[in-house]
């Protein structure tokens, strides 16, 4: 098998032009010829083009991602596996990851979003963990844009269509509408699974001669070059024509695959397992072999196909969904095949592990690809792309423009407008389309600061939240990233859980532009500093570059998924005021500002920079919240985010068990709009029995803790003389904003 593979009849000739059409640069094609000592075959060129794509190789980001804190006392599992895991106690580990599916979702919203959910679920159960929860972060354009309603309907339908049918509850998420995403929406999907620590699976091939099994759906032509051409390039007028590169999801098969894989793992006959995600069979086989320092040989004639005439090129690059690759212990194939037969799934032996370090594919008895494993899995180029500070921040300039029309509304009118803004309003229209209760673990579902899940047969539990703050990142990509991590941690702590680990999805523009690279590097630095300060390791993540259309990049959007743990989930908190007469208090680590606020987006405000964030104070706030919850000192906690303090107070009154009221003393700053509607102050609204006020002050010292009012039964929101509103009417505004814009006429 040492002879070089030969071109198949009818294949295009491989040269620089063909390589460039595959998305490879002149330098990269030269490097491939140098590594091989020959020109690659057409099939091999296809393999390099996906494996060396930005999406698969992280060639622009890898150098910088190394600065993230990836270890910690609670981190389980070695580096290089599919997803990280954290110890959540009682022998359980949580495996979780967030990933982007932005471009496919813009081109074909339903299938793009659906397969995003499916792909991230496979990343979780391939680790041996049963997926128990999903979340998502969705960013759409403004409602003025003609495509927005279509995209919202398709994406939400796709997330629900897949998640609901696969039996994994969608428990939390975030949705934002901003003109900056008109031409490039973001769809980031998160999944979390639970496993017993000893049951975690490996994705590292072992044992030359061990058989390689292909399980799940048959391979078709869908999704070829999804990773290289769609995910790793900017959008332009041609993007519509790339619809065939979007995969089609089959959640029913995914459900069978989950059950069959988890059952097959119990046999102990699986050595390694990996899902066939981006670059399908090629990446899963070469990465498993690469991690084990071994080789792999695949016989493509044995791959289950939907159409008999697929070429080797198509078989290797197909991104057909719901497929997994398994390295089994030699002689135990039949045991595994029996499990998959029970679930009516394909399980074909299609190759074996070798000791020669080559990645080899055979087709009709001939070698069609023969490459060093390392060349495709590890030796992809790593770039240190130039970065430079942009001349002037676009966002600041835009803010300056909008400031011109600033004409401050009365506080009550501002509050009503904010509650009716799609970014602040209830997202019930969205999450009502998601099954949030299947599996019987959901204690707090969508609409909460963080979702709360119990772990059956244990007192322990989990809190989950996904957050982002592109407006802050647009002004300062470093402070914006720090603020995002802190907000996610605060949300989890508001539920009473201790923040324990992060997965991140870093959505940026074209990394070949130095100002984008600068945004990215500053974002990673912010993520690093905040994660270290809060003691929350980054255990998994994903980078999505090229989020641009016609040369216009999105605002930097690092999305942070935070997972927190409860020692006793019965002590969890919700955001709602409960008992009339309780003290309403705010705790904050900084001063509120109109910078990057929803108020500024609606009404305009003078541009201003973001204040630096004191991470020591942020840590104090988070620790204090957890302590208050564990000592049962407070009855509710709610993070102040979009819309500021006044909106947060209203939301805390919207108790599903019956609307409560709140009376806030004007105090020294009650009439200051920035106090009522400003953001970015890391503020939490809590309610507590009067006798606990003293000790709460001590716990949060030296942060600003202030008693601002009391809970009432009157269903009115009163803030000094500035605001006196009927909360039932406010709730109506809050609930009807999205249905009013999205329901069919």
């Amino acid at each position, binding site marked *: 098998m040492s002879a070089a593979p030969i071109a198949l009849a009818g294949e295009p000739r491989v040269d620089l032009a063909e390589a460039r059409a595959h998305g490879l640069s002149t330098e990269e094609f030269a490097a491939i010829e140098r590594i091989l000592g020959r020109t690659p075959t057409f099939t091999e060129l296809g393999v390099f083009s996906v494996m060396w794509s930005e999406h698969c190789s992280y060639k622009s980001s890898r150098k910088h991602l190394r600065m993230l804190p990836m270890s910690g006392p609670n981190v389980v599992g070695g580096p290089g596996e599919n997803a990280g895991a954290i110890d959540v106690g009682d022998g359980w580990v949580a495996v979780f990851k967030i990933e982007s599916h932005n471009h496919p979702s813009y081109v074909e919203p339903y299938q793009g979003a659906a397969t995003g959910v499916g792909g991230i679920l496979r990343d979780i159960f391939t680790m041996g963990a049963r997926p128990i929860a999903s979340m998502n972060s969705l960013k759409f354009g403004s409602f003025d844009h003609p495509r927005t309603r279509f995209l919202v309907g398709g994406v939400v*339908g796709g997330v629900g269509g897949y998640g609901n049918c696969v039996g994994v509850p969608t428990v939390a998420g975030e949705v934002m509408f901003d003109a900056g995403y008109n031409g490039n929406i973001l769809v980031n999907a998160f999944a979390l699974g639970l496993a017993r620590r000893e049951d975690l699976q490996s994705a590292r091939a072992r044992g030359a001669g061990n058989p390689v099994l292909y399980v799940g759906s048959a391979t078709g032509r869908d999704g070829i070059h999804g990773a290289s051409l769609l995910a790793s390039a900017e959008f332009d007028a041609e993007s519509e024509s790339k619809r065939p590169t979007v995969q089609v999801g089959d959640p029913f098969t995914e*459900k069978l695959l989950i059950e069959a894989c988890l059952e097959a793992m119990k046999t102990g006959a699986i050595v390694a397992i990996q899902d066939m995600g981006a670059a399908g069979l090629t990446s899963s086989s070469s990465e498993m072999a690469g991690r084990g320092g071994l080789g792999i040989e695949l016989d493509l004639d044995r791959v289950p196909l939907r159409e008999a005439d697929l070429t080797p090129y198509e078989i290797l690059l197909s991104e057909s969904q719901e497929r997994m690759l398994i390295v089994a212990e030699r002689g135990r194939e039949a045991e595994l095949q029996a499990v998959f037969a029970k679930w009516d799934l394909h399980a074909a032996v299609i190759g074996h592990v070798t000791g020669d370090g080559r990645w080899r594919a055979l087709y009709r008895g001939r070698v069609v690809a023969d490459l060093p494993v390392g060349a495709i899995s590890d030796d992809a180029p790593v770039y240190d792309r130039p970065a430079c500070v942009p001349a002037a921040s676009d966002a600041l300039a835009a803010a300056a423009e909008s400031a011109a029309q600033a004409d401050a509304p009365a506080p009550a009118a501002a509050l009503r407008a904010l509650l009716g803004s799609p970014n602040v309003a209830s997202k019930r229209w969205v999450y009502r*389309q998601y099954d949030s209760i299947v599996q*019987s673990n*959901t204690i707090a579902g969508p609409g909460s600061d963080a979702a709360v899940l119990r772990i059956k047969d244990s007192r322990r539990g989990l809190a989950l939240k996904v957050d982002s703050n592109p407006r802050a990142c647009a002004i300062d990509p470093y402070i914006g990233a720090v603020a995002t991590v802190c907000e996610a941690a605060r949300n989890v702590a508001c539920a009473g859980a201790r923040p324990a680990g992060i997965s991140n999805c870093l959505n940026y523009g074209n990394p070949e532009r130095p100002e984008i690279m600068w945004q990215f590097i500053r974002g990673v630095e912010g993520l690093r500093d905040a994660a270290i300060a809060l003691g929350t390791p980054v255990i998994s993540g994903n980078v999505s570059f090229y989020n641009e259309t016609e040369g216009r990049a999105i605002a930097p959007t690092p999305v942070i998924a935070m997972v927190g743990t409860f020692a006793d989930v019965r002590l969890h908190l919700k955001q709602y005021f409960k008992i009339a007469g309780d003290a309403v208090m705010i705790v904050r680590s900084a001063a509120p500002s109109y910078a990057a606020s929803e108020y500024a987006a609606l009404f305009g405000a003078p541009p201003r920079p973001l204040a630096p964030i004191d991470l020591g104070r942020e840590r104090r706030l988070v620790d204090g919240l957890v302590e208050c919850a564990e000592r049962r000192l407070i009855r509710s906690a709610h993070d102040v985010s979009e819309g500021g303090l006044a909106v947060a107070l209203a939301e805390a009154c919207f108790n599903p068990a019956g609307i409560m009221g709140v009376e806030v003393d004007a105090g020294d700053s009650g009439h200051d709009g920035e106090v009522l509607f400003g953001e970015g102050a890391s503020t939490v609204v809590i309610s507590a029995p009067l006798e606990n006020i003293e000790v709460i002050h001590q716990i949060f010292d030296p942060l600003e803790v202030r008693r601002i009012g009391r809970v009432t039964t009157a269903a009115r929101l009163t803030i000094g003389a500035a605001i006196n509103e009927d909360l039932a009417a406010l709730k109506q505004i809050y609930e009807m904003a999205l249905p009013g814009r999205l329901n069919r006429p």
Partner: protein
Amino acid sequence: MKWGVVRFPGSLDDADAIHALREVLGQDAAMLWHKDEALGGAECIVLPGGFSYGDYLRCGAIARFSPIMQSVARFAAEGGLVIGICNGFQILCEAHLLPGALMRNRSLAFVCDVVTVRVENAATPFTRAARTGEILRLPIKHGEGCYVAPQEELRAMEERGQVLLRYVDEAGVASDAANPNGSMRSIAGVANQGFNVFGLMPHPEHAVEKALGGEDGRRIFASIIAGGARAASRVSG
């Protein structure tokens, strides 16, 4: 009491039903496999929620042909108790063990929410632990829960008391606004003429624990269990 929960490929709330029955209600519940025919001596069969066989044809249309469903049909014909929840309700309609059919929600969208339903007939094995007119808070989660049947059949069903649950508002009044899926006559759950087969779109198995939002689903299970105990005492007596 001995329960059998059928697991079809694509069943999703099967484990939830087992959890509710075993861990919360202390029952003897076993999982039954769709390719088997044996019902394992179960006194009540649960067809759980989910998307059996992907529901790629019509909901429940393929599941009715599975080997286990032939046994379930025989069991029902002999008077055995069968409860179909959500997809289970759809399967029972497809299998003609219950009248009517379930169509796409009026909104054309999947809906996950908590609804209020009124018990319309408490003199059945599935509702005897409730009062007629009692209002239960139960979760729903479905895309195809719009119950339809010919008008004449509906009238006959109403007369015979086969409509067991109806969507109502908090005050107990049926209305368009309180009807989450467009079901005719706001029907949420129906029984067969023998009152031994019951299908409902709400999920009682997701409403048995206070920590998860409510316990009203216990009414349904308690009714069945009470009947089982009565039958057992008849046998032993």
